[in-house]
Structures are given as structure tokens and as C-alpha cells.
């Protein structure tokens, strides 16, 4: 058997492409359907927009979530909650639900078997073929999605609550869901700077081939990179097959984030600056994005990341400490536990690559990098033994430094990356996500919807 590693097939075997590019066909499909303007999910705590389902529609239709091609039925959600599998058996971590206020549903008067036209910014955007109308208890769904210390004591350390942004998304849903296949019928146009980072799976696979990369390691990000992230990327990328990985594919999660995270534009351009200014050669680096209102679900989020990046054509995925985590709800190494031996309490008795209908992407579990004053360099925590003097990287500490108006020293933050933060700080009057940014982001979104005329009912 060859030791060389090649691009894996999409999860489920085939990329979903539910984008109708033929205008006449799109109009024909939508004609006569009841129309509904997509609304954001607003936090039950303070009313802030914390999710817009358009991002999930995009991620389904463009194949990021392949083989998922629909909003889930009750049975499918139950299957996901029980064993993190779709009804056809393929692994999938989160319930993907199109929820709607009860009153809106009553006004629309749609039922199973009907087609709904979904509008975005007042323009036709997608259609949803309603297979099932079902109800759920949002709190119960939120608890079962993320787990509880009683039922999932292998990785859940603390009961989830409103302070957890992902739990809050599910908790803030309406409790009434429409399930069924969804199609984008009017491709949105990405705004600057998002447009240049938009590599849906089919395009990403083409780009990887165009660049001649055989092995590509994915890096998940919701952060502007400090040098700890940079070392993680560079060092994890030594693992390929007979030589280091040819490419590093950074995939940023773009959507509503928790207060205090960096703004999306700075995350993308911050990563871009690393290759623009040569810290990682542009020959080996690409920055991309996925639309998703992050659930901060640590091991579960990592499973979604594995699916997305396998679909994008990556051969490897790096996972660090506290992967996609917030607070201390999960074991800091829960993601690595999943990819090392599985999490039985989530219905995953073995790691995702050892399960039937599991993943083909290879995990690279990495601990952390710290600054060691004794070594006088940034060192890997399992290599450097100076644990008593080692200075760990802390994103929170760096954010605090930035908020105080102090430029972080180059050893922990590249000056060009800091300049990106300041650029967007000037635009928004704030360097991080705050309520104002969330509202503005909800109003503007990452896209504009082109004008499209469709004969409609509602």
C-alpha cells in the first residue's frame, strides 16, 4: 500500500449542490410558493441577533455540510442527538433546524407537502420543500445537543447555561420547525472582504488541485492569529505523508459570535496578513471561510469541522487545546479525546475515522505552544520541560492588551496582523464583537441578494 495520502472523498460520498443556477428554472421552481422573510434568532436573554438561518442554508446548499441536504425532521434530530448520525447513517454532530415563530406559521398557512419561498433582504433567496412540521422544547434540545455532566460525564464538566453562546442559540429557537430539502435559487453576492475568501467545497477542491497540493491540513479559526496559532499551524503542517503537508487551509467560521470575539473581517484579513507578509509562504497557505453561527461545542464542533474540511478536500485537520470552546463546560481536551478514542456517551464509541460512515480526514492532535524564557523561544509543551517558567499564550490576555490600546509585542503578535485589527477597530469603533456589531452584522449580513422577480402568493 502506498504511503502517500490523497484527497479524501466528500463525507457521504458526494458533494451536495443545491444551488439552482439556471434563472428560468429557479423562477419556475419558486412560482406560486408562499413567501417568507428570513428572521434572525434573537437571544432570549437580551434580544441580540445570535443566528441567521441563511448561513445554514448556504452551508447546506453549497455542500459544506454534505451529505446533509435538508433541514432535519424530528426523527433525524433524534438520531443526531442519540448517536450523532443522520438518518442515512453518516456522522453529523448538530441538529440543523429551520425554526419559525408559531404565529408566522399560522399566517403562512403552509403545511407538509407545500413549498416555501425564503426571502433574504427582501429578495427571493431559497426554497424549502416542507416535508414535516414539528415541535420541540428548545431547552431540552439545547441540553441534549451539548450534553450534561450527568449523562456525558466523560467530557462535560459543567451544566450548560445562557452564558454559553451555542446553547443559547438552541435555547432561543421558537420550538416550531419546518423540515425538508432546501435549494438556493438566487445566489447571493458576497461583499468585500468576504468575497475573496469564499471557497465552497467544489471550488476548494479545484483550487487544491490547481495548486498541485496532495496533502492539505485544515486550521479552524474564530480568531485573529497570534504567534501561538501561527506555530500551531506551521508545526502541525510538518505532518503530511512522505513530506510535510503541501498546503495549510485556514477556514474561518463567519457569523454571529460571542461578545468579545474578534470581528469577522479582522479574523479573515488577519490570517491573510500572515501569508501576505511572508510569515507563511503564500505558496502553502490559503484562507477560506464557512458561514455558520458558531455553537462553541468543542468536540461536537470539531466533528462538524472535520466534515466541512473533508468536504473542502483537506487530508488532515489540526486540533489544539480548547478547540472551538468557550468557558469550562467541556474538558479542555474533549476534542482530542474524541479524535483519539471517541466519546461513547455521545454515541461515538470510537474515533470518527474508525466508525462506519465516519470521516476520512486525519486528525492531528496538538497540545500547545508557549513562550519559554529559558529556551528563549516559542516551544511545544510536550518538548520543552521548563514548565515552571513557561509563559502560556492566552487569547483573552492579548485581547485585554489590545483593548488597553497597547500594541502586543512582535513575539506574540505580528505587527501587520495588529494593523488589520486597528483598521477594523476604526471602522466599528470597537475591536471586538459587541451588541452594536451584532445588530449591524444582522442588518448587513455578509451578502447582498440580487433583485429577482417571482410570481408569489404572499
Amino acid at each position, binding site marked *: 500500500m502506498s504511503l502517500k495520502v490523497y484527497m479524501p472523498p466528500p463525507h457521504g460520498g458526494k458533494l451536495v449542490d443545491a444551488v439552482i443556477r439556471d434563472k428560468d428554472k429557479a423562477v419556475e421552481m419558486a412560482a406560486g410558493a408562499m413567501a417568507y422573510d428570513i428572521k434572525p434568532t434573537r437571544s432570549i436573554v437580551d434580544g441580540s441577533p445570535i443566528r441567521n438561518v441563511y448561513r445554514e442554508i448556504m452551508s447546506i446548499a453549497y455542500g459544506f455540510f454534505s451529505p446533509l441536504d435538508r433541514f432535519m425532521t424530528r426523527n433525524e434530530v433524534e438520531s443526531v442527538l442519540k448517536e450523532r448520525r443522520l438518518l442515512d447513517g453518516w456522522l453529523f454532530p448538530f441538529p440543523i433546524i429551520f425554526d419559525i415563530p408559531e404565529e408566522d406559521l399560522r399566517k403562512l398557512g403552509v403545511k407538509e407537502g407545500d413549498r416555501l419561498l425564503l426571502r433574504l433582504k427582501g429578495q427571493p433567496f431559497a426554497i424549502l420543500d416542507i416535508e414535516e412540521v414539528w415541535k420541540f422544547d428548545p431547552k431540552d434540545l439545547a441540553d441534549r445537543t451539548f450534553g450534561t455532566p450527568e449523562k456525558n460525564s466523560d467530557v462535560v464538566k459543567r451544566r450548560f447555561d445562557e452564558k454559553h453562546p451555542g446553547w443559547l442559540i438552541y435555547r432561543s429557537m421558537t420550538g416550531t420547525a419546518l423540515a425538508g430539502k432546501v435549494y438556493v435559487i438566487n445566489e447571493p453576492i458576497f461583499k468585500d472582504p468576504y468575497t475573496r475568501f469564499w471557497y465552497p467545497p467544489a471550488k476548494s477542491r479545484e483550487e487544491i488541485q490547481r495548486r498541485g497540493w496532495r496533502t492539505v491540513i485544515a486550521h479552524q479559526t474564530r480568531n485573529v492569529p497570534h504567534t501561538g496559532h501561527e506555530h500551531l499551524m506551521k508545526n502541525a503542517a510538518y505532518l503530511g505523508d512522505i513530506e510535510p503537508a503541501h498546503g495549510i487551509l485556514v477556514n474561518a467560521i463567519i457569523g454571529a459570535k460571542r461578545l*468579545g470575539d474578534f470581528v469577522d473581517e479582522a479574523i479573515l484579513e488577519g490570517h491573510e496578513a500572515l501569508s501576505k507578509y511572508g510569515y507563511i509562504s503564500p505558496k502553502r497557505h490559503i484562507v477560506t471561510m464557512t458561514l455558520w453561527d458558531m455553537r462553541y461545542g468543542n468536540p461536537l464542533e470539531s466533528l462538524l469541522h472535520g466534515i466541512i474540511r473533508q468536504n473542502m478536500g483537506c487530508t488532515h485537520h489540526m486540533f489544539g487545546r480548547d478547540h472551538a470552546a468557550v468557558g*469550562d463546560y467541556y474538558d479542555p481536551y474533549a476534542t482530542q479525546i474524541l479524535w483519539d478514542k471517541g466519546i461513547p456517551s455521545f454515541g461515538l464509541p470510537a474515533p470518527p475515522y474508525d466508525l462506519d460512515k465516519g470521516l476520512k480526514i486525519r486528525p492531528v492532535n496538538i497540545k500547545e505552544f508557549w513562550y519559554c524564557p529559558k529556551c528563549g523561544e516559542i516551544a511545544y509543551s510536550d518538548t520543552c520541560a521548563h514548565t515552571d517558567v513557561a509563559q502560556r499564550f492566552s487569547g483573552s490576555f492579548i485581547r485585554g492588551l489590545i483593548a488597553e490600546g497597547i500594541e502586543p*509585542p512582535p513575539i506574540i503578535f505580528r*505587527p501587520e496582523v495588529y494593523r488589520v485589527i486597528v483598521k477594523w*477597530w476604526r471602522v466599528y*469603533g470597537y475591536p471586538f464583537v459587541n451588541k452594536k456589531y451584532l445588530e449591524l452584522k444582522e442588518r448587513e449580513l455578509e451578502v447582498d441578494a440580487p433583485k429577482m422577480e417571482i410570481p408569489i402568493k404572499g
Partner: protein
Amino acid sequence: MGMPYKMAVILDKARLERIKGTQLEGLVKDLYGGYLKVLELDVPDDVAQRILKEFPRARIDARGFIEETPVVFKRELFEVIAQLRSVGREVFEELLKPERLSRIKELAAKEEEYLPPPPLLEKEK
């Protein structure tokens, strides 16, 4: 006994000047090869819980440090340290006095809307 937490106050040139010649000077720690100077404070568990309660966005990071407190909280923390010439528990007792705390919270609320961006960076001039 709860877990011992910490807080760090970053010292820029002006702050270093303020503590010059005091006993605090001997407590200054180098971070990241001396690029950053900080004063570290031990935070008793009850004080830590109080800070987390008063400032919902504050959190304990992977190092066990309380971070993401409002900028004005950190600024006032330094003021109290400089005034009392101490990094002991009394610093937090002073900082969390009702009148002072309510002023900090008032300013912190404004800070959540707007933070002045830094002046032009050297390379942009």
C-alpha cells in the same frame, strides 16, 4: 479553599514611571522575553467570584488569570495599586467599594459601545 486565581496589570512606560522607587518595582515581572512588564496579583476565590459576577464578560483563562474585565477596571486596578503601593487583598477591597465599583461599572457600560482606536501606528505615519 478554591483555586488560586491571578490578575495581571500591564505596565507601559508611564505606569513603570509611576511605581519607580517604590517596593512595587521589585515585583515587576518580565513576560515574553521582557517585551512586556506586568504586576501580578493573587486573587482570593471570593474576590474572583465577585469580579466574575460584577462583570459578566470577565472570564478565567487557561492560565488561571482573570481576563476580559473592562479596560476601566484594569486602569482603576493600577491606580489603587499605585496608591496603596501594594498588590495584596486590600487592593481589591478598595477597588470593590460600592462607590468606586458603581463608577467603574458606569464607565464600563459606555466602553462596551465604543473604545477609542489607538493613534496612528508608527509605520502608517
